[in-house]
């Protein structure tokens, strides 16, 4: 039990990797979510089917399968292309494979969140802005986006909470994140239970902190709205 405390700096480094993966994936997912939502709301049927296809495929495949596919499949693909171009063996980064996979998965969920939020904003808001002579960009930034943020926040928060827990599976491709390091340390010291318990508590801690911050953010974006 006390061995875990000796290993605290190591676990701290792991936690940092976990949080980096989570935050970077969220950034990527947000970008993909915006693109996905734009595609789904597009007037062109082709874009709409691309957007729908993205969500449908991602929602059908478990996260770990996609991570393994992107890491091992990507490794092979990169080297197949590399060898025809005459490069030596290229190592695909585990860290980025994890970030890209998780970002890709949750981008699909966020696209649905953003699309819903956009549709919740009453049409009259955009029409009123146009009637005032505002340009399209100004309408989007000054009238629609602030309201979309407000409507999207509950869904966005939920995606973040699920995404954080999803980062645990990147340890399966051998990344030294919180779970990966605790796994190694636990096996070498034969103290697995205490190490996994520490990981469990660390995730719980991240959950509690996120919940608290998101509640405050929710208050902020809803300021001025009578409850």
């Amino acid at each position, binding site marked *: 039990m006390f061995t875990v405390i000796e290993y605290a700096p190591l676990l701290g480094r792991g936690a940092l990797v976990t949080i980096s993966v989570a935050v970077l994936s969220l950034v990527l997912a947000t970008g993909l979510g915006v693109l996905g939502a734009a595609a789904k709301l597009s007037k062109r049927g082709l874009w709409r089917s691309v957007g729908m296809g993205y969500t449908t495929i991602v*929602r*059908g*495949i478990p996260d770990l*399968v996609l991570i393994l596919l992107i890491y091992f499949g990507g490794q*092979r693909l990169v080297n197949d292309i590399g060898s025809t171009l005459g490069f030596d063996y290229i190592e695909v980064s585990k860290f980025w494979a994890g970030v890209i996979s998780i970002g890709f998965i949750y981008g699909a969920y966020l696209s*649905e969140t953003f699309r819903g939020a956009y549709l919740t904003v009453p049409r009259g808001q955009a029409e009123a802005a146009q009637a005032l002579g505002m340009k399209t960009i100004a309408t989007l930034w000054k009238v629609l986006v602030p309201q979309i943020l407000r409507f999207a926040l509950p869904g966005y928060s939920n995606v973040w909470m699920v995404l954080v827990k999803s980062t645990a599976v990147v340890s399966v491709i051998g990344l030294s994140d919180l779970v990966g390091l605790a796994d190694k340390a636990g096996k070498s010291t034969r103290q*697995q239970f205490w190490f996994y318990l520490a*990981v469990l508590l660390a995730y719980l801690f991240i959950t509690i902190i996120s919940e608290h911050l998101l509640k405050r953010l929710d208050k902020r974006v809803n300021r001025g709205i009578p409850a």
Partner: protein
Amino acid sequence: MNIALPLKHWDLFAWGVLTTLELTALALVVGFLISLPCALSLNRASKLNPLIQGYVYLFRGTPLLVQTYIIYYGLAQFDFIRDSWSWVILKEAWWCALIAFSLNSGAYQAEILRGAIQTTPRGEIEGGKALGLSMRQITWLCVLPSSLRRALPQYGNEVVFMLHGSVVASVITIQDILGAGRTLNGKYYVAYEGFLTAAVLYMTITFILVRIFRQVEKHYLRHLVRSPDAVKVPAVPGLPQVT
């Protein structure tokens, strides 16, 4: 991509599908049995509630992978567990996965059911009272059937979520769908074949499940269409509501 490989080893994947479905279904059933008393207790004043809330919060706030590890690898650390009768069960990866998945699903289902019970329209309970039903009868004849129907879309989500969560089993050596894919990849030293086959199989099962739930919802939620209590059914399965 060599399509012949997975076709040649179709039995490997068939067993994988069976294992995945078996684990998922059992975990959902056991999870439901856990969630029922929890949800009922959470909807009235009970001294056990802090304990139940702690359980629900712990299992919803941490990754399923770590929960499975702690039961499979973690508990094996203690000699008193290895020496006890429970070791017969706890040394088997399959049982450990089932225990972890059931506890996890139980927590999610408890939250789903608690929410549904809480939003039961007052009139339904008053109707039961007016008919002279006892509190227990109202719970079993009015509140639960009504709550379970209204929670159908969330249950559909939970089923898909559990199916996807069950891939964790392959990490602790169980030959589920993903396990079959990894075995194939390891055997022939290939990168795509096993994982792509697994992905296609998971996707197929997901869509079949979504289809089934759509039909069941159509049947059981018919009375709610156009009513103020209408349940909004999402077009595609989403994430479980955590916040």
